[in-house]
């Protein structure tokens, strides 16, 4: 087993087993927590890769140094001196009696929960890390309902057929065209589909899905999920609607 010894000005403070892998940083969820402003929230991590022990800088602001040289990723050798902020961490390859690395955090069975205060601190650090990280930010399509308050909103303008309004603003997360009483654009008549088309917000745009009847988009059957573009014509049960963008109308209220 290998261990890390945290030192400050040559004085050993604490030993940590590498175990399955540990992180070093200023926040309380790090196994090796160093409460010093020069240390990033999640500064570096140490983990096993096969038989080797790897030190990896997690995009820290002030860098990680091994024996005086800056590193982003380094295979630790016995006796290596890692510098994080003003603290040294000495790597011991063959420690006999490692102490278990315990994160100083409230443990709930096996799952651990960060309360709002801890979470805010974490988020602030992550945001600053993101701001100064040189590496490309990993982006994924948002699926949660964080309304990013687009400055423009999509509208459906009635081109032909009879409807209650001349124009419908697509404010909700999901807007429905159909007979349903939750529909934005109400279709009248017994044989009309309860939901003919569902239009969902998707990031900055809108996606239309045919749900019933035989809706058309630009005279072709609406199939699968269709990303609405300015000027698209939807034909639903005799009603013709044009999709258009309207600038800077309203800010959304958060859910």
């Amino acid at each position, binding site marked *: 087993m290998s261990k890390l010894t945290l030192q400050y000005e040559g004085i050993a403070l604490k030993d940590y087993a590498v*175990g*399955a*892998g*540990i*992180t070093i940083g200023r926040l309380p*969820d790090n*196994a090796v927590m160093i409460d010093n402003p020069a240390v990033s929230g*999640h500064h570096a*991590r140490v*983990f096993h890769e096969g038989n080797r022990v790897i030190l990896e800088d*997690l*995009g820290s602001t002030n860098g990680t140094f091994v024996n005086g040289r800056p590193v982003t990723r380094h295979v630790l050798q016995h006796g290596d001196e890692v510098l994080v902020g003003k603290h040294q961490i000495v790597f011991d390859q063959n420690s006999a009696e490692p102490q278990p*690395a315990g*994160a100083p*955090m*409230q443990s*709930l*069975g*096996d*799952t*651990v*929960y*960060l*309360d*709002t205060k801890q*979470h805010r601190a*974490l*988020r602030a650090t*992550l945001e600053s*890390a*993101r701001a100064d*990280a040189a*590496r490309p*930010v*990993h982006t*994924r399509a*948002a*699926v*949660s*309902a*964080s*309304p990013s308050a687009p400055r423009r909103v999509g509208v459906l303008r009635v081109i032909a057929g009879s409807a209650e309004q001349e124009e419908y603003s697509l*404010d*909700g*997360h*999901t807007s*429905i065209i159909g007979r*349903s009483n*939750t529909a934005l654009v109400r279709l009248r008549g017994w044989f009309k589909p*309860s*939901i003919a088309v*569902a239009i*969902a917000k998707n990031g900055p745009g809108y996606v239309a*899905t045919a*749900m*019933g009847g035989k809706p058309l988009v630009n005279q072709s059957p609406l199939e*699968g999920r269709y990303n609405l573009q300015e000027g698209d014509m939807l034909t639903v049960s005799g009603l013709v609607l044009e999709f258009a963008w309207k600038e800077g109308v309203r800010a*959304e*209220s958060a*859910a």
Partner: protein
Amino acid sequence: MRLRVGARTDTGRVRPQNEDAYMSQAEHGLFVVCDGMGGAPAGEVASEMAIQAIARELKDRENGDALEASPFLPHTQRLVDAVRQSNEFIYGEAQKDPRQAGMGTTIVGAWIREQIAGVAHVGDSRAYLWHNDRLEPLTRDHSLMEAHIEAGLADEGRSLPVEQQNILVRVLGREPAVDVDVTEVPVRSGDYVLLCSDGLTRMVAESELAHAIRTYQDPQQICDRLIATANMNGGADNITVVVVEVTGGWWHRLIDRWKRSVRRGQDVETYAAV
């Protein structure tokens, strides 16, 4: 539109008890999975409490209006309101009883009405949509891991240390108020909605979830196979899976039934969706 439903929960192979709980009210189109925490017996209590509170809230206001103006459809907003209420309830109970102090639970709920699934979640229990032969996540975990991914500090290949992978940043019952993530998605005949606790997703890759849906098609069989796979891979945590298949009108069902009778010669009960 009709719904065929499979559901199952399992203690797994490591934990002494099952702290997961689920609700499957196919006749209402309402499905919930909770993963409790807080050690025995509070974790079990918290997840069960959440389920009961949701059922109660939605029963009280079955056809009531949503409490506030909302960008979501009324049934989605009611689900979100119910999740918030259950948070308050669990938090209140935890304050009263020291044996239950610190209990909490994740929650993922889907309410399918009129072909729109409203999905609300807190924590790392997940919802997926199977659509067009593809599995799409409908939720993002409220976990440290996900926070790192969002910040560009980690990705699936460059993971956090194991002991940090199960740190949650949001759960029900630990604070007086909670943010609930919400989404809505249209569902069509042939789609499946899958809800599960992390006992499944930690043990079984998403590609295997997709494979199970594609291969078995029958909701209960999908649940059974996925739980078996999770246990085969270690069963480190409690495992809960709810699978809802959306089927079409009578002609779809007829074709489906014919296909199934050819395949296995048996059928499961179907429910009319509300």
